[in-house]
């Protein structure tokens, strides 16, 4: 590198900064500059493509990690204390020794961080080393480079099924239409293919010698001049690299959530600090009084080094700090580390739970938030999405109505209802299997059982009538991409091309294809693109398409309309939404097979076997305002211009042709509407299909307008939508479809259980109220005898009572109230003046169903309830529309389902099935909470009990901050002897078995609200600590008073009693003993004796030399230890005994039941449940009066409207 003046370097760096910051990013191709020095490169200012997700570098690990760790207030406090030790006037221990605990804790955390960072480094390295092909003007061909060497301005060649190395601008593809398809599953989890077009206006001249590019385009970062990233495949210009890719920029890292328990814990830490200060002030005052009371200077008062004595006031001032050092353990230094370790252990067990594993997707639960496990045990409100969360989001075609005639598909329908649903489901699945032997398992649900009547209807007619139109519309009016089942997710078989031969690697494809499967986070290219090997190869491209076409199923179907190269059965449809796929599959089942789709044409095979190739004139894509989509095609035979539209029923019905005209049409419309209502009641998702025939003139004039709209610079979106609305008029209704979104496995059971656990379940959905209510009934959110209040803008003046049950037995018992609200009403209810009333009403409702809500509303509802009612909320959802809600709730649970990974990305816990929520909350939530709560309380107790011994001793040593235990042993006491048992307790204790927790959901209520960790329990255990330390100190004190015992010989039994008390206290608290518990408790005791004995022998400078040995041959030692331990633990033991014997808290009952035989236990559970259920009914009756506020509310709402 040539010499550059420092000034020039600075200038260069500043220029680079400017270049990066500019809105307009001017990129220059690297090709002319290849081989030049780095500083002459035009794109040198941009960062390279290497990914670095590590936090630290090897060199600066220690300072950076320390810096990170000192962000924690607690650590700073402890370091401050350690430094205080070095102040000579206050030193209580040897300063070096005082550093040990904080060093150990810092080191433990650092090791953990280093290990995590190393893993990140390894995965980065793997990614950065992936190969890709970059054009080199020297070599005149694409050469293989590693990902990290790709630079901004390079030309990259990406082949079919390659992983895209960076954000790319698509310049050229092998497809004649300049189209490629990408899968973005690794970015957003969406498994469907997305179409990308090559940049128009780019002229690529390819010759045998060089590539020349003329690009008349400016790329803006953030807002791309091209309509959305028209990126990927074939020669691309790299425009964003590595850290600057959209994905990296959007990745904000994990959120830090603080659990409620942790917030309470911090309050208690402050209490501890206050306590510590009180004790220190007592010590300091005591020292002052003690010094003052002396008539003259006694023998034992040691002067300072220079021979003078401090005045009592100064000396007691120093003593205050010495006391802080002596009693610092009262604020548990290791608590934070222990909590982290416990949570890691808890998460280990959660992720290893077989019951939370889903065979089908091979996914276990993912815990993304590491520090809120215990919040799972305190949930009071669950907000759930419907589609994909309660339901499978795998659409099954159920019923249809064509020309006002209903085809119920009874064979399907009979599996829909009935109490023996599970059994029927089984039959149904068998049937499906019979139909779909050739298909991969995940496709089963899309198969349709044919309605014989409808089949006859179609077979019977040859001419193009409404029936055919209906199915053609199903087949055409969509954005489904056709690919090959066999080619799915496979790479093009390895063809050793020129490049591969040039490289020395044996077969890079093998490594790549395994990486394709492994790499979790990169965009993957999918099959249906023919590949091109190199620029030199362009002349033979046509050939290569033919060669590979069979394997990769090119979109470019041969136009000559001959018999398809592939049998129809092997077609694979990739749809943006499951509904579309279901409809296309239905059409296929009735013989209308969508063969292929290109931007310009759609090929459909008719039942007769003939193939029709429709020219696609335009596609009016779906948007949420129009709630419909249309495809404009030209019929190949009649050359008619036909518009097929499908959409929400109300969106279509409004647009029907001459609603007051032909009687027949009107009848069809009204019949269809009737059917639609019926479908909705059954919980089906409904769609209307309509058609419109345009005359050429009409089309021409519209097309001009459309072109204008497309070309417009300002307000483009609006114009495009307007043009779409313009043509979607006077439609002719063809029919309607009902698609079922099946409930997931055991959703009703889960919902019931959660409600029994005292959790309110709300469903927030974008669906219609009818569909939502129906699903509500299906998943037992609403019960048959519930009082359902339906609130919508239409019925503001009155409120609807829907008491479905006419059973006279229910007359005396007021049914539970459920609330159904629609989105617009919700907007009003969320207004500031109605909020409180709404919350008040909602609190009295057993379940709430919000329909037609927007993602924003979802999160607003969650926030409102969380803040107004001060409750713990959990939001569960699967789609991008649930992200807001998931982030707003205390705990966000993502369901990795059909709708992509965005919800999972935003969530704290990702599960694969809704039913997993049951065990996650009821068992793991309960365990995590009770374990951690008890562990923290125990930790406070443990430190207080131990430290108080020192405090009591101050009264007998003139408050001189002396300790009767050697400082090493004091440090070991917390670090070695008593550190592992509480951690084990926090990870492994089980108050009630999983079976009981699942069998008796009521047990979950114990954790809700305040739960086991409250102000009360904290102070009880602190009092207990004081009591126990008093016993542990004063029993030996009275025993040895006036004797010739020396300091350390006195301290040894104290320490031993303290150890036994602390460990046996834990033993009382441990609810379930396993071999691990026994091992660790015994291990701790053994370790204590071994270390203390060894210390007494090895360490000659230790004043307490041979102390424990001497004590252990003295029977008094054992007698003192025995009685002190017994007295110390007696109250707590008695308390537990009495609590378990006299009170009848559910947990205690459950523990009693747990000791029974499994069979009798189940019997009891059943009986108990039936009993509790009755009680619950009654209490809810009392608490939910039909409040008059409802009517007020309605009145108010009316006023708002006015």
């Amino acid at each position, binding site marked *: 590198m040539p010499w550059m003046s420092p000034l020039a370097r600075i200038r260069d760096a500043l220029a680079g900064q400017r270049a990066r910051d500019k809105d307009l990013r001017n990129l220059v191709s690297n090709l002319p500059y290849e081989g030049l020095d780095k500083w002459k490169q035009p794109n040198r200012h941009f960062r390279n493509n290497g*990914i670095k997700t590590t936090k630290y570098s090897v060199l600066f690990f220690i300072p950076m990690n320390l810096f990170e760790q000192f962000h924690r207030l607690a650590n700073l406090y402890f370091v401050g204390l350690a430094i205080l030790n070095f102040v000579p006037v206050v030193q209580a221990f040897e300063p070096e020794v005082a550093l040990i605990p904080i060093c150990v804790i810092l080191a433990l955390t650092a090791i953990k961080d280093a290990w995590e960072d190393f893993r990140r480094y390894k*995965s980065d390295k*793997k990614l950065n080393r992936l190969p890709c092909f970059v054009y080199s003007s020297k070599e005149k061909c694409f050469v293989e480079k590693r990902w990290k060497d790709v630079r901004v301005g390079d030309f990259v060649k990406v082949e079919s099924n390659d992983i895209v190395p960076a954000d790319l601008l698509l310049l050229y593809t092998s497809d004649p239409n300049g189209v490629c398809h990408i899968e973005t599953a690794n*970015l957003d989890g969406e498994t469907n293919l997305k179409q990308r077009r090559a940049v128009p206006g780019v002229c690529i001249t390819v010759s045998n010698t060089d590539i020349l590019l003329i690009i008349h385009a400016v790329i803006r970062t953030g807002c791309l001049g091209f309509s959305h*990233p028209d990126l990927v495949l074939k020669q691309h210009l790299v425009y964003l690299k590595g850290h600057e890719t*959209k*994905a990296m920029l959007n*990745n904000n890292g994990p959120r830090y959530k603080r659990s409620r328990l942790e917030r309470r814990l911090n309050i208690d830490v402050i209490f501890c600090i206050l306590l510590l200060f009180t004790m220190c002030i007592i010590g300091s005052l005591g020292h002052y009084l003690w010094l003052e009371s002396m*008539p003259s200077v006694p023998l*034992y008062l040691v002067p300072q*080094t*220079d021979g003078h004595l401090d005045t009592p006031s100064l000396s007691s001032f120093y003593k205050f700090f010495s006391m802080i050092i002596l009693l610092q353990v009262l604020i548990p230094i290791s608590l934070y580390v222990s909590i982290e370790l416990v949570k890691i252990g808890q998460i280990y067990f959660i992720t290893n739970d077989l019951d939370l*594993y889903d065979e089908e997707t091979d996914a*276990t639960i993912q815990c993304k938030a590491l520090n809120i496990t215990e919040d799972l045990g305190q949930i009071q409100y669950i907000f759930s999405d419907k589609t994909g969360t309660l339901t499978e*989001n795998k659409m099954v075609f159920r019923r249809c109505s064509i020309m006002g005639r209903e085809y119920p598909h009874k064979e399907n329908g009979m599996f829909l209802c009935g109490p023996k649903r599970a059994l029927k489901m089984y039959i149904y699945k068998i049937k499906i299997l019979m139909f779909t032997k050739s298909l991969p398992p995940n496709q089963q649900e899309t198969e349709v059982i044919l309605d014989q009547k409808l089949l006859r209807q179609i077979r019977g007619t040859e001419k193009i009538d409404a029936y055919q139109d209906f199915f053609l519309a199903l087949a055409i009016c969509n954005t489904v991409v056709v690919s090959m089942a066999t080619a799915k997710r496979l790479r093009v078989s390895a063809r050793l091309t020129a490049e591969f031969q040039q490289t020395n690697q044996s077969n890079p494809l093998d490594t790549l294809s*395994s990486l394709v499967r*492994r790499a*979790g*986070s990169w965009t993957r290219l999918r099959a249906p693109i023919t590949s091109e090997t190199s620029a030199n190869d362009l002349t033979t491209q046509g050939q290569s398409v033919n060669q590979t076409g069979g394997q990769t199923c090119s979109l470019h179907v041969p136009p000559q309309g001959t018999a398809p190269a592939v049998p129809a059965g092997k077609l694979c449809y990739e749809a943006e939404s499951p509904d579309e796929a279901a409809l296309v599959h239905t059409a296929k089942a009735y013989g209308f097979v969508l063969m292929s789709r290109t931007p310009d044409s759609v090929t459909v095979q008719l039942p007769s076997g003939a193939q029709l190739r429709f020219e696609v004139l335009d596609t009016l894509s779906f948007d949420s305002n129009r709630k419909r989509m249309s495809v404009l095609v030209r019929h190949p035979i009649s050359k008619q211009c036909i518009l097929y539209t499908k959409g*929400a029923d109300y969106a279509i019905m409004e647009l029907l042709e001459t609603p007051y005209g032909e009687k027949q049409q009107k009848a069809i419309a009204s019949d269809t509407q009737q059917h639609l209502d019926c479908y909705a009641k059954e919980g089906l998702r409904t*769609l209307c299909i309509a058609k419109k025939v345009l005359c050429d003139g009409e089309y021409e004039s519209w097309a001009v307008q459309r072109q204008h709209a497309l070309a417009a610079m300002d307000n483009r979106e609006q114009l495009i939508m307007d043009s779409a609305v313009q043509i979607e008029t006077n439609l002719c209704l063809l029919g309607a479809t009902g698609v079922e979104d099946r409930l997931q496995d055991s959703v009703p059971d889960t919902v019931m259980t959660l409600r029994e656990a005292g959790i309110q379940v709300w469903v927030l959905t*974008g*669906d219609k109220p009818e569909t939502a209510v129906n699903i509500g009934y299906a998943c037992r959110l609403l019960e048959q005898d519930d009082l359902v209040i339906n609130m919508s803008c239409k019925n503001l003046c009155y409120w609807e009572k829907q008491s479905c049950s006419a059973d006279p037995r229910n007359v005396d018992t007021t049914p539970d109230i459920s609330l159904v609200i629609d989105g617009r009403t919700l907007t009003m209810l969320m207004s500031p003046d109605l909020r409180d009333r709404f919350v008040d009403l909602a609190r009295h409702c057993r379940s709430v169903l919000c329909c037609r809500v927007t993602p924003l509303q979802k999160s607003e509802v969650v926030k409102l309830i969380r803040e107004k009612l001060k409750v713990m909320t959990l939001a569960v959802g699967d*789609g*991008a529309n649930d992200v807001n809600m998931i982030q707003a709730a205390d705990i966000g649970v993502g369901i990795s389902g059909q709708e992509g*990974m*965005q919800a999972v990305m935003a969530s704290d816990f990702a599960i694969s099935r809704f039913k997993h929520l049951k065990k996650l909350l009821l068992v793991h939530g309960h365990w995590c909470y009770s374990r951690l709560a008890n562990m923290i309380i125990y930790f406070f107790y443990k430190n207080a009990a131990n430290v108080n011994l020192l405090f009591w001793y101050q009264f*007998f040593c*003139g408050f*001189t901050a*002396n300790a*009767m235990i050697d400082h090493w042993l004091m440090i070991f006491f917390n670090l070695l002897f008593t550190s592992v048992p509480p951690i084990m307790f926090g990870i*492994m204790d089980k108050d009630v078995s999983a079976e009981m927790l699942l069998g008796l959901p009521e047990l979950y209520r114990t954790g809700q609200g305040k739960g086991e960790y409250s102000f009360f329990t904290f102070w009880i255990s602190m009092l207990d600590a004081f009591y126990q330390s008093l016993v542990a100190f004063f029993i030996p004190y*009275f025993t040895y008073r006036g*004797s*010739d*015992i020396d*300091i350390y010989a*006195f301290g040894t039994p104290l320490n031993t009693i303290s150890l036994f008390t602390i460990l046996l206290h834990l033993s009382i608290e441990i609810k379930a*003993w396993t*071999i691990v518990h026994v091992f660790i408790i015994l291990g701790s005791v053994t370790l204590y004796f071994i270390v203390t004995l060894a210390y007494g022998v090895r360490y000659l*400078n*230790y*004043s307490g*030399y041979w102390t424990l*040995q*001497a004590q252990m041959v003295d*029977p*008094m030692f054992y*007698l003192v230890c025995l*009685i002190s331990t*017994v007295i110390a633990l*007696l109250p707590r033991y008695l308390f*537990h*005994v*009495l609590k378990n*014997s006299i009170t*009848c808290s559910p947990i205690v009952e459950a*523990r009693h039941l747990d*000791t029974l035989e499994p069979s009798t236990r189940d019997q009891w559970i059943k009986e108990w449940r039936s009993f509790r259920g009755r009680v619950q009914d009654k209490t809810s009756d009392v608490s939910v009066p039909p409040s008059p506020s409802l009517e007020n509310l309605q009145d108010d709402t009316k006023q708002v409207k006015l």
Partner: protein
Amino acid sequence: MMASGYNAKDEDGHIAVAGLGGGALRSRKPENTAFKQQRLPAWQPVLTAGSVLPAFFIIGLVFIPIGIGLYVTSSNIREFEIDYTGVDVSSPCFNCSQNFNWNSTKPCTCSIPFYLDQSYESNVFMYYGLSNFYQNHRRYVKSRDDSQLNGDPTELTKPSKECEPYAFHEHKPIAPCGAIANSMFNDSLELFYIDPNGTKVPVPLSSTGIAWWTDKHVKFRNPGGNPNLTAAFQGTVKPVNWRRPVYELDSDPENNGFINEDFIVWMRTAALPTFRKLYRVIQKRNGLMPTLPRGNYSLDVHYNYPVRSFEGRKRVILSSISWMGGKNPFLGIAYVSVGSVCFFLGVVLLFIHHKYGNRSSSADMSH
């Protein structure tokens, strides 16, 4: 409805770099082991009145006899205590206690007569007791150099900083250094039996065997291999308050210097401000004669040690020997009371068990 499925679909975005590298080839199915599934065989004791009843009765039954045994043992220990501080004007040591000076060369002696109304049959421990003496003062406890006491020759002349300000005197190192050594108890006590005919018969006091064996033989050592202690301590000075240097503590070479047992006993700092330290042992001479027969005695004190500055008291304690140390009825009483309380609680629990105990095994649904 299509709407819910389509919302916000076109957002590209988040990427999980952290999720990389997980072996997708291998099934992620968790292992079905008892540990991982938290199904380790567990013992789940439920503390109820019924299940803990025996424990309470057993504690009661065990503790009460132990307590009685301890109490009896304690009351069998004979202790005789003489306060010779000399606070009262009437006390023989009053004069000595009033005129005290560390540097006076002439020792002040006083003699305290006392009468033993019961004889001591076996060996007797003779303690001196100090009260209100805070040997556990923090700075005091640390003011010693254990390496020096262990005979480390370099530490002998370079006492540790902990000994300050008793490390050097007139620029010479102090041996043994530190405040503890400096303040060593230096009264000498002699015991005389006064015959019925009035003659004073000295009671033989053994000054060895009063320190811990390990202290005397391992922890404390005289410096160097030099048998001549005077030479070994060459270059050091005696602690300021001492009258004699450390190598002149006793004439017996096995009980001189750092391994002098009086010194070792003093160096084991007491835990509490009122303490006693073993001074001498009165060995039983033959099987027939009691060690200390009943009668008149006289305690002759060379009164050297000042306690007025901290309002302390000095005592001499004659105690018979037992396995439980000094006379202290506390532990015995404690055992008896705890045993009784447990027994009582056992009865209460029995009652509770009778009343509530059936719940867990029969229908608790009615509660």
